[in-house]
C-alpha cells in the first residue's frame, strides 16, 4: 500500500492538464450539477469540445487513437477520470453515445455497426438509449415494445419513457421484444435495434422534470419500420447487451460521484462561513460527518480499484453508486438547512449561488432512482456480494 502513483503515471496527468489548459472551454468546467438547466441540451460548444477530446485521444483514453483514445492503462484511465472530476470538467453532455452505445456496437455489432462507433464516441451522432417503459423500470425484462418480423424489416410498436436526450438524438439504441412467449423467461425474448429517430412512426414527447428542464422524453413507436440489418447482435440476445458499458472505465465509474460529493462539501463549508454558521457546534459536527463520508468513500473507490487493476472483481465498487447518490441527497439537504428560510427562494438574483442548492437538491433526488434505484442496488449487493438468497 502506498499513497502516491509512479512518476510515469503522474506524467500522464501532467500532459492531460496541459491539454485541458489549452483546449477546455469554460462551459465544460461548470460541473454537472449546474449544467442541468441549460436550454439547449447539446449546445455547439459541447459538440466541438467532445470532437476536440476525440481528435486528441482524450475522449476515452483506454481506446486506440481511431476510437478517440491513446491506449491508456487502467491506472491512467483512473487518473484521467480523477483529473476531470477534480477540475469539474465534463467530457460530453450526453453519456449514452460514448459510454453505452459505442462500446456495445464494438462488442456486439457487425462490421457496419462497428463502423458507427467512432461517430458515437466523437459525439457526431447523438444517441439515446431506449430502455425503460411505463411497465418496465427496475424490472427491465418486463419491457413490451414489440418488434415483429415483416420481410426484410421489423415493425416496431410500443412506448419508451425516461429516454434521456431523445429530443436531440439522431439514433436510438432500442431494446425491443422480438419473442413474446410466456413459456420462456422474460429476459430471453429481448433484442436490440438501431432505430433512426427520423423513421416515420417515431414520435418524441419531451417530459418536463421537477426542475423545469426537459432532459428526457417519452418515445412512441407506431408501426415504425426498421431494416433487419439494424439488429445488433443475436435476435433474442439483447439481455447480454444491457450489461455492456465501458469495461475499461468500470474501475473508475465511482470517481464522478465522489468528486460531486466533494464539490458539494466544499460549497457547504463556504456557505456555513458566509452565513456565520461556522461556529455552530451542530453545523460543524454535521459537516464533519459529511466529510467523513466523502473521504471514506473516496478511499473505498481506490481500494476497489486495486482489486479491479489486478483483474479480480471489486465488490467495493458495488457500493459506490448507492453510497454516493444517497450521500448527495444528505449533502444538499444540509445545504438547504444552512440556508434556513432562504432555501426555498428560487427568484433569480435572490437565490443563493444562482439557485445552486435547490437545483442540486432536486437533481440529487433523481440520482437514487436513475441507473438502478437504491433499492435495486441493495438487492444486487445482497445477492451478488453477500451471497444472500434471492427474495
Amino acid at each position, binding site marked *: 500500500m502506498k499513497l502516491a502513483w509512479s512518476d510515469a503515471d503522474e506524467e500522464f496527468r501532467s500532459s492531460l492538464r496541459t491539454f485541458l489548459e489549452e483546449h477546455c472551454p469554460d462551459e465544460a468546467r461548470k460541473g454537472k450539477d449546474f449544467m442541468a438547466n441549460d436550454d439547449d441540451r447539446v449546445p455547439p460548444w459541447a459538440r466541438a469540445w467532445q470532437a476536440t477530446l476525440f481528435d486528441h485521444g482524450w475522449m476515452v483514453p483506454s481506446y486506440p487513437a481511431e476510437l478517440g483514445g491513446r491506449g491508456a492503462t487502467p491506472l491512467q484511465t483512473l487518473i484521467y477520470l480523477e483529473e476531470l472530476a477534480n477540475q469539474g470538467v465534463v467530457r460530453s453532455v450526453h453519456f449514452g453515445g460514448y459510454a453505452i452505445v459505442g462500446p456495445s456496437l464494438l462488442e456486439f455489432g457487425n462490421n457496419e455497426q462497428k463502423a458507427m462507433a467512432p461517430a458515437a464516441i466523437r459525439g457526431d451522432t447523438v444517441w439515446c438509449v431506449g430502455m425503460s417503459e411505463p411497465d418496465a423500470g427496475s424490472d427491465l425484462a418486463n419491457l413490451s415494445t414489440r418488434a415483429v418480423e415483416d420481410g426484410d424489416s421489423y415493425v416496431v410498436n410500443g412506448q419508451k419513457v425516461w429516454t434521456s436526450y431523445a429530443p436531440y438524438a439522431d439514433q436510438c439504441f432500442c431494446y425491443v421484444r422480438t419473442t413474446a412467449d410466456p413459456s420462456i423467461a422474460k429476459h430471453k425474448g429481448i433484442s436490440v435495434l438501431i432505430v433512426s429517430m427520423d423513421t416515420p412512426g417515431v414520435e418524441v414527447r419531451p417530459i418536463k422534470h421537477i426542475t423545469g428542464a426537459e432532459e428526457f422524453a417519452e418515445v412512441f413507436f407506431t408501426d415504425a419500420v426498421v431494416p433487419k440489418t439494424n439488429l445488433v447482435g443475436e435476435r433474442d440476445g439483447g439481455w447480454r447487451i444491457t450489461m455492456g458499458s465501458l469495461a475499461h472505465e468500470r474501475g473508475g465509474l465511482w470517481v464522478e460521484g465522489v468528486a460531486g460529493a466533494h464539490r458539494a462539501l466544499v460549497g457547504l463549508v463556504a456557505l456555513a462561513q458566509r452565513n456565520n454558521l461556522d461556529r455552530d457546534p451542530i453545523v460543524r*459536527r454535521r459537516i464533519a460527518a459529511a466529510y467523513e463520508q466523502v473521504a471514506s468513500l473516496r478511499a473505498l473507490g481506490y481500494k476497489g480499484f486495486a482489486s479491479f487493476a489486478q483483474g479480480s472483481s471489486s465488490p467495493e465498487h458495488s457500493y459506490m453508486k448507492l453510497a454516493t447518490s444517497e450521500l448527495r441527497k444528505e449533502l444538499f439537504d444540509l445545504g438547504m438547512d444552512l440556508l434556513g428560510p432562504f432555501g426555498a427562494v428560487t427568484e433569480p438574483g435572490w437565490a443563493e449561488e444562482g439557485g445552486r442548492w435547490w437545483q442540486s437538491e432536486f437533481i440529487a433526488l433523481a440520482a437514487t432512482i436513475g441507473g438502478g434505484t437504491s433499492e435495486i442496488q441493495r438487492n444486487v449487493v445482497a445477492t451478488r456480494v453477500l451471497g444472500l438468497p434471492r427474495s
Partner: protein
Amino acid sequence: MDFTLTVEQQMVRDTARALFAKECPSSLVRAHIVDPAAADVLWPHLQDWVALGDGPCTDLALFCEEAGAAIVPGPFFVTAALALPLLRAMADAAPGSPTAAIADQVGAGTRTATVAWAGVDGIWVIDPPEDHGRTFILEADRVDTIVVMLPGPSAIAVDARILREELVPVATLDTTRRCCFLSASSVASLAGATAVVPLDPDRLAGVLAGATVALAAELVGTARWLLDASVAYAKERVQFDKPIGAFQAVQHQLVDMALDVERATAAVFYAAMAVDAADEDAPRATHVAKAAAGTAARHCAKVGMQIHGGIGYTWEHDLHLYLRRAHASDDLLGDAAYHHDRLAALLFG
C-alpha cells in the same frame, strides 16, 4: 493511492488470521472474563508481533484488524500500539537512559506495558493538565510497566508493582480489556522524579495518531465479524419457509452494515498510509478513520443483534462480547463525535 497489499503485508494478514483462529477461540475470550490469567497462554504467540509497533502503521493495522475480529483479550494492543511507540519517543529523547532499555524489552516482547494518558475527562491530549488523575489505563494491573503522561509534555516509565496499590480497577462494558484509573495525587507524586523525560509534542501527536488508526483497524475487524456472523445467520435461519436473508427488509439492513464496514476499512488503511507517509492529510484521515470505524462497529453490533433476534440476546451467544467491545473501543481514544469535532476544527479553523 494504491491499496494493493505487498507480499509481506498479505503474509501479516494471513498469519494473524490463522493465529487467532487457532489460539484465540471464544472459549478463551470467555475464560478471561472470569480469570484474566486465562489469556496468558496467548502471549507467547503474540510477543514476536509487538515489534509491529515499531514499524509502519499499515502493517500494525493489518494485524490489529484480525485481532479485532477475534476480540483478542489482554495487553497486546496497548503494549504494541501505545506503550511501545511512546517508550521509543522517550528513549529517543533520553538515549542511554533506563527507559531506553525498557523500550527495547517491550519491543522484544519480553515485557508488557501500558500508558496512563487520558485525563479525568477521558480525553487523550498531547499536554495533559497538572493535578489531573489518569483514566482508562488498560491492563494496568496485568502489565510490567506503566508509562504515565505528565505535563510538559513529559512522561515517566514506572514499574507497575510500584503503583499496584494505587490503581483503582474500573469495570467497563468491555470484558476483554481490563481498565484502571489513577488518582491525581498518585500522578502528582511522580512529577518530580529523575526518570521523567520531556517529550516533543509533534512526536506525541504521531504516537496518538498511529494508535488511533490501529484501534480503528481493530474496530473494523470487530465490525466485520459482526457482519459475517449476521450474514451467515440470515442464510441459515428459516422462518415462513425461507431463510430470513431472502427478505428484502433483512437484506437491506445487511447491505447497509456491509457498506459501513467497507468504507471504514478503506478509511482506516488510507489513514495508515497517510500516517506512514507523514502526509499533510494524515490528521484529517485519522479522525475520519476512527469516526468511521467506531460508527461501523456500533452500527453492526446493533443491527446484528436485530438480525439474530432472541438468540443473539443471550449471554451464551458471542454477539454481546462484540457489542461490548464495539462500544468500549468507539469511546477509547475519542468517539465519533469527538473526532468529528476535531475534524471540524481542521475544516473551519
